[in-house]
Each structure stands twice: as structure tokens, then as C-alpha cells.
């Protein structure tokens, strides 16, 4: 927490916490308090929640689709959120031009979140058109919706101004830099709630490893399980995208890392993915803050740049027991 463009000694960091918790009555320098308590601490908490949410939803969605390449974009949530955000930046931004920054910030988030949920719902409805949702049609519907939203977003991007284009680009690369106590609270509740619900599906997801028919033979109501995983997976990802933009890759890779070392049982997988996701994102954010000081790298670039090759290395190393 002390590391960054403006470095703070560990003692001072502890001092800020001691003061905030009422242990130390002596107040530290106020700009240090502000930096630590109002900027860096919420940012770290945001990293924890977002990393945890992306990894858990990735683990659950991969379990549902029984596909190692599945990630939450397959259920349409990222595509919808992306489109909503682009529309908002291109059109809504001018409407809200006079509004306070805070309002603009949250409005974009809410818009993206709703867009994500709406497209997930659409994917689900499309897949259920004939005889209830089949997982394979769900997958295809997800791919279709994602490419359609991508195309429409491209259309808006084509008509955007230079400045809007810049905003869009930064948004798609994700960043934790806007985090404050308010946004942390907004993220915390849905993330905790939906993570717990997904954790409760762990045994069902275990049975689903055998296939949908087999899971039904074991007494699982696959349809219920599927809609729960989709809804709560979409909430987790939607909330994160809404608050910090797109942070790719985490949801895909973290669950694989856990599986490589501890197998595919979902109780452990979901919890461990949550922890690992949180740790990795906080560390990545730290790197994002310090590598090009005093500027900041968008965190999405870092997660992909470091994670990709690392993942590849792990796969090569263990190709015989895995996949």
C-alpha cells in the first residue's frame, strides 16, 4: 500500500490504519491519510472483489459449459456491457455533460451492467426457444450475440469523436484507478451474494462434469443449476465491468491454474479461484501503477500480457495429465 508514484513508509501506512481504527489518537499527515485511506485502500479492496468475482464466475461458467475455453463472454454479458458502454460514451456522454463527474461515472457503470444482463437474458431466451435451454445452443447463442453486439458497437465507434474513442479504448482496457469507497460498496454486496450462490452450486457442478444426462441421473435439476450459474455469473461479471471496465483473461485462466494443481472439484475450485483471482488482480494493479510511473498502465493489458505466456507455460508443462 505504500508503494506507488508517491511512496509511503510502512510505518506511516500502519499509522493511518491505527488512527482510522481508533487505536492511535495521534493523526498522521492529512495528505498521507487521504492517499492511503481514500485512494489506495479502496483501490486494493476493489481489486480483491473484482479479481475474486471474475475468477469465480469463470470457474462456474467453465463448469457449466464443460469447456476449458469458456469464459463469461460466452453467456453474452461482456458483449452487452461493452455495447451499452460504447453507446453511453458516444450518445449519453453529451446528454450528461453538465452533470457531476460522480454521476457520469456511476451512470456509465449502471448502463453497462444493465446492458450485460440484458444481453445475457437475450442469449438465454434465444437458447430456450425450442424445448428448453440446451447448453450447446446456449453456447452458440452467446457467440452470436457477442458478435452482433460487437458489430453494433463498432458502428457507434465509427461515428464517435476522437475523445470518445479514447474513452472507449481506455474503458475496454479496464482500470481500477477510479475506485473509491462508494464504488467498493456498490461492488461488494452483489459480489459477495452471487459468489455465495455460485459456491452453493459446487456439488451440482461436480456432477455436471459427467455430462448433463449423467447429472440428471444423479438427481440434479440441470435446468435450475444452469439458470442460477448464468444469472449469478452474469451479475458478478456485469458488476465488475460496470465499475472497472473490461479486465479480460482472469476469468479464463485462474480456474485453470487451480485445476492444474488441485483438480476439478468445485468446492475447492470456487474458493481457491476467488482467492487467487483477488491476489493476482491486486498484484497486477500494483504493477500497473508502478511500471510506467507517474502514469498508469491499463490493467487489462497487464493481466493478458503476463498471464497469457504463463498460462501457456503451465499447459505445456502438464500436457499429459490435463485436457
Amino acid at each position, binding site marked *: 500500500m505504500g508503494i506507488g508514484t508517491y511512496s509511503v513508509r510502512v510505518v506511516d501506512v500502519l499509522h493511518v490504519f491505527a488512527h482510522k481504527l481508533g487505536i492511535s489518537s495521534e493523526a498522521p499527515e492529512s495528505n498521507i491519510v487521504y492517499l492511503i485511506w481514500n485512494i489506495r485502500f479502496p483501490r486494493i479492496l476493489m481489486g480483491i472483489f473484482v479479481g475474486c468475482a471474475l475468477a469465480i464466475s469463470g470457474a462456474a461458467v467453465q463448469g457449466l459449459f464443460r469447456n476449458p475455453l469458456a469464459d463469461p463472454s460466452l453467456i453474452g454479458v461482456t458483449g452487452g456491457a461493452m455495447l451499452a458502454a460504447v453507446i453511453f460514451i458516444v450518445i449519453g456522454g453529451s446528454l450528461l455533460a453538465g452533470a457531476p463527474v460522480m454521476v457520469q461515472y456511476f451512470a456509465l457503470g449502471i448502463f453497462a451492467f444493465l446492458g450485460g444482463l440484458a444481453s445475457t437474458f437475450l442469449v438465454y431466451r434465444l437458447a430456450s426457444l425450442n424445448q428448453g435451454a440446451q447448453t450447446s445452443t446456449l453456447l452458440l447463442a452467446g457467440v452470436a450475440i457477442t458478435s452482433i453486439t460487437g458489430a453494433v458497437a463498432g458502428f457507434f465507434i465509427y461515428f464517435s469523436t476522437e475523445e470518445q474513442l479514447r474513452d472507449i479504448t481506455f474503458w475496454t482496457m479496464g482500470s481500477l484507478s477510479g475506485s473509491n469507497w462508494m464504488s467498493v460498496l456498490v461492488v461488494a454486496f452483489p459480489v459477495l451474494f452471487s459468489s455465495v450462490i455460485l459456491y452453493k452450486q459446487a456439488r451440482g457442478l*461436480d456432477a455436471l462434469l459427467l455430462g448433463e444426462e449423467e447429472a*440428471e*441421473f444423479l*438427481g440434479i435439476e440441470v435446468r435450475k443449476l444452469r439458470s442460477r450459474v448464468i444469472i449469478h455469473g452474469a451479475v458478478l461479471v456485469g458488476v465488475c465491468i460496470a465499475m472497472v471496465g473490461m479486465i479480460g483473461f482472469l476469468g479464463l485462466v485462474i480456474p485453470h491454474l487451480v485445476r492444474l494443481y488441485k*483438480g*476439478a*472439484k468445485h468446492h475447492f475450485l470456487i474458493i481457491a479461484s476467488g482467492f487467487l483471482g483477488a491476489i493476482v488482480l491486486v498484484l497486477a494493479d500494483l504493477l500497473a501503477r508502478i511500471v510506467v510511473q507517474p502514469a498508469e498502465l491499463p490493467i487489462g493489458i497487464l493481466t493478458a500480457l503476463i498471464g497469457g505466456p504463463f498460462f501457456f507455460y503451465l499447459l505445456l508443462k502438464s500436457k499429459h495429465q490435463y485436457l
Partner: protein
Amino acid sequence: MSIRADKISLQIKKQEILKDISWEARSGQLSVIIGGNGAGKSSLLKVLTGQWKAQEGSVHYGNKTIDQYTQAELALKRAVLSQQIKLTFSMSVLDLVLLGRYPHVIHQVGRKDKEIAMNMLEKVGMQDFAKREIFSLSGGQQQRVHMARVLAQIGDSSKAQALFLDEPTNSLDIHYQHSLLDMAKQVAQEMKLTVIAVLHDMNLAARYADYIAVMKQGQLIQAGTPEKILNATLIKEAFGVESVILEHPVLNCLQVITYYS
């Protein structure tokens, strides 16, 4: 628990798949369904397991119809070994067998579940592989592990239960084809299970089945013990091939030699 089909008819997209099938499989016996491709064997199995619902007729488990059970209750009544199970993510053999305990477990598997799982692995001769990853085993070994899993689902079978096998010998070599059906027959007797298997191979059916049901074009054309029903006329009708039926030279069962003319 006997399993009884009562006047079952099934249509899918206006096509008649099963026509007016009435049949009963008894506990303690291995009942085998045979028939050519597209005869409706697997469809009948799907209706009997409760996976598909027939438009007409009913399926009875003991003295209740199958609709009176919830999915979870049904999982305590019957286990099903499917033709092909493709896993995406590997896991240990023991963990896979423990999945069979799912319907019996409220939260986490306990010591008793592990004991049952190990017993069943021993039954299929795979106890030494418990800690191995499932992907490191051959197809035949995997099939045996899945057999252990469905047996673990049945468990100690203090309640009357059923086991369905959908072409269980498909991926197995000759040795394991025999050993799997031998095992199926054994568990039927020992655990008083109603075992229903779909098979292609008439000689395996003749050797192991207590009872055979022969299907053709969605209808049940003959049912009874192998000795009673297997004859050249029936085989000609069901499969469209000529045949000679002999006494097995060593064992006390029939032997079917088929030919095409």
C-alpha cells in the same frame, strides 16, 4: 423392485418411436433388450429411466409410477450407465466414483461414502487405481470405473433398486465384455437389483441374460428366457439375417451363429 412398462407409446416430432410396449423386468435378474439399429432400444431405456416421458402409457417402479418421484428421489431408486461419457476435466478415480454418492449426501462425502466407493472399485477390479487420474486410464478401465460409480450410487441397496446399462460393452475388449456382464448378473443376484441392459451382441445376451426382450421398429416382438425365445425365425424377423442356434459346447447356454444370404 420390479420395473414395469404399461402400454408405452412415444412419438418424437410426429414420428412413432415406441408403439404400445408392455413389459416387466424383475429384481434379481439381468434383463436384456436387443434389436437392430433404430429398433427403439435406447428410446425404451430412456423412457424406463425417466429421462423421456412417453405420451401414452406409464412406467412403474414397484407399485408407484415414475411420475410420482422427483428427480432426486429417482436418483435413489435407479442408476444409469450411459454408452459414452466424455469428461472435459480430469479428476481422480476415487473422486469420480464418489460422484455416484451424490444423491445420498447432504453436504460433503463422509467416511462411509468413501468406504462404499472403495468397495465398488474392488468389485470392478480397479481398487489399485483409486488415486490415479481418470484421463491416464484406458477406455476399458474408464468404463469399469464408471461401472463402480453407478454401483456406488446404488450403494448397499437396502432399498429395492434398479440399474440400467446402455450398451455397456461397446468400448470394451472381449475379456471385459464378459467380465462386465458377469458382474452385472452377479450384482443383480447379490444385491437383488433389477438390471436392465441394452445389448447388440446376441451371444452375450444368450450367455448372460435371464430374460430377453426383442425389439423391432418400436415394437416389442418377443420376450422371455433365452432358451425359450431364441430361434432362427425370430432372429430373421428382428435382424434380417439367417442363423443357426446351437447348444454352447462348453457352457449351459445357447450359441447363435448368424450369416447373410
